[in-house]
């Protein structure tokens, strides 16, 4: 096995009741990377993460996680992986300290009490350790959950939409922490819906309807999409948007505040399509770089087409 590849899976497929949720998914994640996992709701992100840590058995496909087989050696994987579930899943009727001590003891950590005390301090939860987990606000619950899954000093963190429903400040602090952990050599796979979070990742993968559609650094993914984008500002943008959407060569029209993003995969066709509108005095046209969001929305509409 290549010592630098932490996750290496090929052809993972999983279906529930005949509905394919993950289809022929292959991916590789290198050590020390923050790997963003993006995709719309129900695209198979959670299912993929669960297959990686042994909570689900793939119907077909194979691979390794930390060098252990994901199908036959999930017990060994569990010991070395920290998994943070999408929904808070620690015990609401236990206190912060009790939750952490339980985790420490299940993982068989030495000096459990001492480790828990350090963890509480590091998480900034000192003074509230006797508070019941169920009474914490969303941001603190998330912090506790992260504390619990980093407590056993895992080599790989699997975070399933860790920042859903968390305020921007807590979100930023969370990402600072993730970067600290990655700097210490921890590999992090994190699923998210937020574009700003995707841009904080070393590499990203985009998954929609069970298929992996794009993979690489943010720049690589944007470049690979070959999107030509124009930004339009001016009056009556709604009217313009409706007219543009119907034209051939225009693959995506999306409002951004007081302007409109118009993109197409074929630059020539796009330019031909918008030509008549560029003469209109009401609108100002400006060539622009495609954003990650443009790329994702474009990818998503195509994935749907395939079904």
């Amino acid at each position, binding site marked *: 096995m290549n010592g630098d590849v932490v996750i290496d899976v090929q052809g993972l497929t999983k279906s529930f009741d005949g509905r394919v949720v993950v289809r022929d998914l292959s991916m590789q994640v290198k050590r020390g990377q923050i790997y963003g996992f993006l995709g719309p709701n129900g695209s198979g992100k959670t299912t993929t993460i669960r297959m990686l840590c*042994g*909570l689900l*058995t793939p119907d077909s496909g194979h691979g390794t996680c930390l060098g252990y087989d994901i199908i036959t050696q999930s017990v060994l994987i569990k010991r070395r992986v920290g*998994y943070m579930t999408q929904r808070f*899943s620690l015990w609401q009727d236990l206190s912060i300290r009790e939750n952490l001590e339980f985790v420490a003891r*299940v*993982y068989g950590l030495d000096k459990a009490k001492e480790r828990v005390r350090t963890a509480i301090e590091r998480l900034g939860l000192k003074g509230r350790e006797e508070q019941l987990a169920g009474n914490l606000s969303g941001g603190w619950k998330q912090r506790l959950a992260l504390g619990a899954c980093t407590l056993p000093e895992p080599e790989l963190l699997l975070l399933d939409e860790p920042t859903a429903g968390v305020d921007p400040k807590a979100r930023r602090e969370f990402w600072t922490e993730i970067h600290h952990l990655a700097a210490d050599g921890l590999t992090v796979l994190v699923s998210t819906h937020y574009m700003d979070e995707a841009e904080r990742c070393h590499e990203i993968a985009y998954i929609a309807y069970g298929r992996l559609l794009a993979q690489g650094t943010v720049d690589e993914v944007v470049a690979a999409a070959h999107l030509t984008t124009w930004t339009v500002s001016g009056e009556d943008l709604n009217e313009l948007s409706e007219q543009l959407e119907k034209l051939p060569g225009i693959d995506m029209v999306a409002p951004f505040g007081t302007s409109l993003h118009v993109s197409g995969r074929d630059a020539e066709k796009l330019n031909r399509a918008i030509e008549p509108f560029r003469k209109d005095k009401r609108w100002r046209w400006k060539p622009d770089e495609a954003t990650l969001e443009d790329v994702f929305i474009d990818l998503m509409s195509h994935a749907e087409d395939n079904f």
Partner: protein
Amino acid sequence: MFGRVSAMFVKELLQLQRDRITFATMIAIPLIQLLLFGFAINTEPRNLPTAVLMQEDSDLGRSILSGLRNTAYFDVRRVAHSEAEVDHMLKSGDVLFVVEIPAGFARAVRRGETPALLVIADASDPVATGSALGALETAVTMALLRDRGLPAVVEGTKLFEVLQHRRYNPEGSTQLNIVPGLLGTILTMTMLIFTALSVTREIERGTMESLLSMPIRPVEIMLGKIAPYVVVGFLQALLILVAGVFIFDVPVIGNIWLLALLTTLFITVNLSIGYTFSTLAGNQLQAIQMTFMFFLPNILLSGFMFPFAGMPRWAQWIGEALPVTHYLRIVRGILLKGATLSDLGIEALALFGLMLVAMTIAVTRFRQTLD
């Protein structure tokens, strides 16, 4: 207002229809239980397990034996030749009756001396033995008259006398039977409920996902979840027992430590069964329903409310599969009869076996993944 009530009504119906197991239990279970208990329960027991202690080998003795065999009340399983054998059979609950034909009985009958025929009844379950005692005298007299052509009985005289000995509960007090029985049934109910919810609760609260992602094995989860309730159950048993002794004057004839040991085993069996339900049920409601479905035969087919010996053979087999059946024999045996481990070995083994079966099912059925 009607609109809102009907909205709620439709929503509940839809949810009920989604939960197939609940729906099935509502239809099938009442029917099964009606048939099961309707045929199984018989308050006037027949075929009571009986032993005959032959102190002499005579033609009259053999007549009595066949006479007893011909009645529906008695099922003569053993012919014993010593007091010690009989004691063991009664203590272990193998037989409820012993008919003793004393030495010189045949000669005394022929001489018209009206000798005594000794009947020892296990009165720890007074209901079971009460009506059969009455039938005994008639059955034996008929047998002797028919087989041996003895002189017809003159009005007001008898060939022999029946000397009854109600062992273990000479006054026929039902409380001596009921209180130990309650110990078993109350423990069954509370222990089942404790663990029946333990796994489904983790699933419903979403904490199962955390638990499954941690390096802990199903058997470790099970043992860790059962252990605290063994202590709780033990305290509960102690409370019932102390109350039984001081309020209902239940005697403690046997070894209290043996009782403590076997009670702990019984508590663990029930906790394991509850835990098994928890791994089989999809939600807490189903777990509760399974518990009740299991609990009813524990009361009706275990010998707690109705005499075990009075049930048909198939119902007795169901009863043997219930832990409380064995525990009732243990509790009544130790408290009322002073039974020892050698008398109760089979019951203890049965409990141990049931525990292993329940735990094995629980561990194999425990879903280690979210598939």
